[in-house]
C-alpha cells in the first residue's frame, strides 16, 4: 500500500510525526503528535488532496500490552484523486484526554469527534459543539472505555422539561 501521503507529511512536518509503521496487513500508519494535528490535517486536505473524510474512532488500549498512553484516536481520510486512504493516529493520555479538533478543517469530523467524546471521553479542543451524539447528556461515564462494565446500569434520570416544543391541542403534555 502506498505511503505517499505519510511520506509527504513526514517531509513537510518532521516534528509532527512520532512514529511510522506498517500494520500486518500492509496498511501504512503514522503516529502524529496531537499539537500538530490540525496542521497535518490541513496539509493533507489542501496540498495532498485528501479530502473525503472517512472516519475517526478511538481505541482504549487498557488491556493491551502497550497501554501508556491509554488512548489512541485513529483517523482515516480518503483521496479521490489517488484512490487511497491515509491512516494516522494520535496518542492521548488518560490524565489529559484532550486533543485539538479538526472539525474546522473537515466538517465531516464533527459527528465523529462527538462520537469519540461520547464513547471514550476524549475532548476535542476547538470543536464548535462537543455534545454527546448517540447517548444522552445525563449518561454517566463513557461506555467504550474498557473499564466500563458491559452490563453497567445507569441511574434513572428525570424527564426533561419540554419547553421548546410547541404543543398543539390534545391531552399529551398537559397536566
Amino acid at each position, binding site marked *: 500500500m502506498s505511503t505517499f501521503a505519510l511520506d509527504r507529511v513526514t517531509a513537510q512536518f518532521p516534528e509532527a510525526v512520532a512514529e511510522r509503521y506498517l500494520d500486518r496487513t500492509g496498511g501504512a500508519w503514522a503516529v502524529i503528535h496531537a499539537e500538530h494535528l490540525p496542521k497535518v490535517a490541513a496539509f493533507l486536505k489542501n496540498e495532498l488532496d485528501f479530502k473525503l473524510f472517512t472516519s475517526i474512532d478511538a481505541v482504549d488500549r487498557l488491556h493491551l500490552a502497550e497501554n501508556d498512553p491509554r488512548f489512541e484516536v485513529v483517523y482515516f481520510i480518503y483521496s479521490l484523486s489517488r484512490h487511497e486512504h491515509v491512516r494516522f493516529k494520535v496518542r492521548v493520555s488518560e490524565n489529559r484526554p484532550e486533543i485539538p479538533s479538526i472539525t474546522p478543517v473537515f466538517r465531516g469530523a464533527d459527528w465523529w469527534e462527538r462520537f469519540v467524546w461520547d464513547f471514550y471521553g476524549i475532548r476535542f479542543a476547538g470543536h464548535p459543539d462537543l455534545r454527546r451524539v448517540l447517548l444522552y447528556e445525563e449518561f454517566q461515564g463513557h461506555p467504550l472505555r474498557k473499564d466500563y*462494565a*458491559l*452490563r*453497567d446500569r445507569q441511574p434513572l434520570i428525570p424527564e426533561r422539561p419540554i419547553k421548546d416544543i410547541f404543543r398543539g391541542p390534545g391531552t399529551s403534555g398537559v397536566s
Partner: protein
Amino acid sequence: MSDNDNKKPTGDSQTPPKGSPSETREAPGSTPKHPPAGAKLDTPPAAHSGPTGTPPPPAAKPAGPPPPKNPGFVTCTIDGKEVVVKPGTNMIEAARMVGSDIPYFCYHPRLSIAANCRMCMVEASNAPKLVPGCQTPLVEGQVIKTTTPKVKEQQRAVMEFLLLNHPVDCSICDQAGECKLQDYYMRYDYRPSRLEGGKVMKNKRKVLGPRVVLDQERCIICSRCVRFMNEIPKEPQLGIFGRGSHEVIDTFPGSELNSNYSLNTVDICPVGALLSRDFRFRARSWFLSAAPSVCTGCSRGCNTYADFMGQDTYRYRPRENEAVNKSWMCDHGRETYKGLNLGRVLSAVVGRQQGITARPEVARKEAIQAAAKALSGVKGQVAVLASPVASNEDLLAALTFAKTTLGAKEVYVGGRPQGQADHYLLTADRNPNRKGLEMIAQGLGLALKPFEDLAKAMDGGKVKALYAVGTEVPGNLEAFSAAASKLDVFVAQSTNESALTAQATVLLPASAHVEFDGSFVQVDGLIQRFRKAYPSKGDAVGHWALAAELTREMGGTAAWTSSREVFRELGKQVTGFAEFDWDKSAPPDREKPGINPLPTAADGRPPGYREFGAPRVRGL
C-alpha cells in the same frame, strides 16, 4: 450450524489447507518428509552435547570452541534472539525467556525429565536430528530454532500420534477447556484424522483410589503422575503397565492411590485421564472463574485458586508459591472448599434453637440491635472466644470491639481440633491463622487463654456471657454446647452451622474467606493475602463488618467500610503488620494458569456470577 457443510473430509492427503493464515504459509508441500509418526518414539535420546540431565561444565571446554561470551553463563540463540542462561538450563525454560513457546506434555519444571512425549523437539545447530527441548541443556553458542518446517512437522506428527487412540470425549470430559491436547491440536496440528478402523479400547473408569479415577483411554502415558508420586510425596503408588498401545497407568496390585497428595496427579495430568472423583461432572471448566486464595485446611497456608461459579466454590487448585507449597497442595485441604457451600449460616437468628423447630430468621440489623442490647447489660463480664480460622481483618476488628467496647482483657482461643501432621505439607494445626491471632492479641494487649479454661469456667458457672468470633471449638463440641446452653448471653458470629451455633442467643452470619479480601498468617509467620471471589452468601458479612456494626450499635466508633481499612487502621498496633503492604501483596486476580476460558469479570458482574443463577449441574 449449516446443513450444507457436511462436505467430505478432505484430509486424507494430509496437504495443509489452502489459505491458512499467512504466517504458516511456508508449510505446504515442500516440508521434508519425515518418518511416520509411529516411529517417533523410537528416536534415541537425541544427540546433544553434554551428558543428559547434568549441566555441562561451562568453562571447561576443549580449545576448539570459543570461550563463553558471558563467563559463568551459557549464551546461545533461540529463534534469532540471544539468550543468556545459567548452565544446565533446558531449552524450554530458556525459550520461554525470549518469548518462544516450546510445547510439551511430559515436562514439568518440578519433576524429573522423562522426555517421552516428544512434543518439545526442536532444531539445534549442533545436532543432526531434532533434540528434546526439555532434556537438553543449552551449550555455548548453540543456535536453536523452534519454528522450522522440520519442527512443525514433528509437532504435527506427535499430535497425530497422541490423538490416534484418544477417545472422542471432549463433550463429556472434565478437562475440556483446560486441556493441553486441545490447545496444542489447534496450534500445531489442526488437520483431520487419518485413522482408519477403531481405536484401542481400555478401561474408561478405573478407580485408582478414594479421590482419583482414571480414564485409561484418554491417557497419553506422559508419566507425570508416576513421577510425581515417586518424587514429591515419595509415595510410589502408581506405575505404568503393559506395552505399546496397551500401556496403561495403574496402581500396583492390591494397593490403591490413597496418598494425601493424590489429587495433584489430577492437576498435572495434561489431559483428562486422571480425574477428581469429587469434581467430576460437576462443572465445565470454562464456566468457572478463579480467584487467588489461600487454603484454610491447616496452618501451612497453601496458595490456591478457588474456582467458582455463581456463589459456589467448586474446587481448589494449588497456586504456585515457591516459599510455601511449590505447585502442590494436599487432598485434605482441597476438601475444605465444601464448607464454603454447605451448612452455612446464611441469616441472623435471635433466640436459642428449641428442639428441631426452626428459629425465626431476622434481619441482620435487628439481630445486631438485639446483640448490642444483650451485650450492653454484661459489659466487662463477657468472655471472648476467638477462632484462628478467622482472618487477620476479622480478628483485628472483632478483638478491638471486644477490648474497647466489651472491656475484655483476655481472649480464649477456639479453632478446629488438632489433627495429624503428615510428612509433607499438612500440619497438625488445622487452623489457618493461629499465628495471626497470636500477633493480633499481642498487638492489642489481650491475653490469650486456652480453650479448656473457658470450658472449665463455663462448667463452673463463672462465665455468664460469651462473645464468639467463629464457633469452631477444639474440645468436645457436645459438652461445650451443653455448657453454652446455660449462658445468659451468647452472641456468636459464625460461618457454618454446628451444635454450638444452635445455642447462640444471637447468631450472626459471617462471610467465609472467599467472600472478602483479607489475609492470614501461616505457620512460618508469612502473611498471605487472599482475594474475594464472589459476594457473601445470604445475609452474611465479614466478622469485621459485624464487629463494626456491633461497635456502632453500642455507641462506639468504627468507621471501617472495608477489610482493607480495617487492616490499615487497626493493623498499625500489631508488630509485623505495619510493614505489610496489604494492596501490593495481593495476588493478581486476572490470571489463571492454563487457558483463560472467558474473562467473566469483564462485564462488570463479579467473576463467575450468572444473572439467572448457576447453570444446572449434577451433584449440587
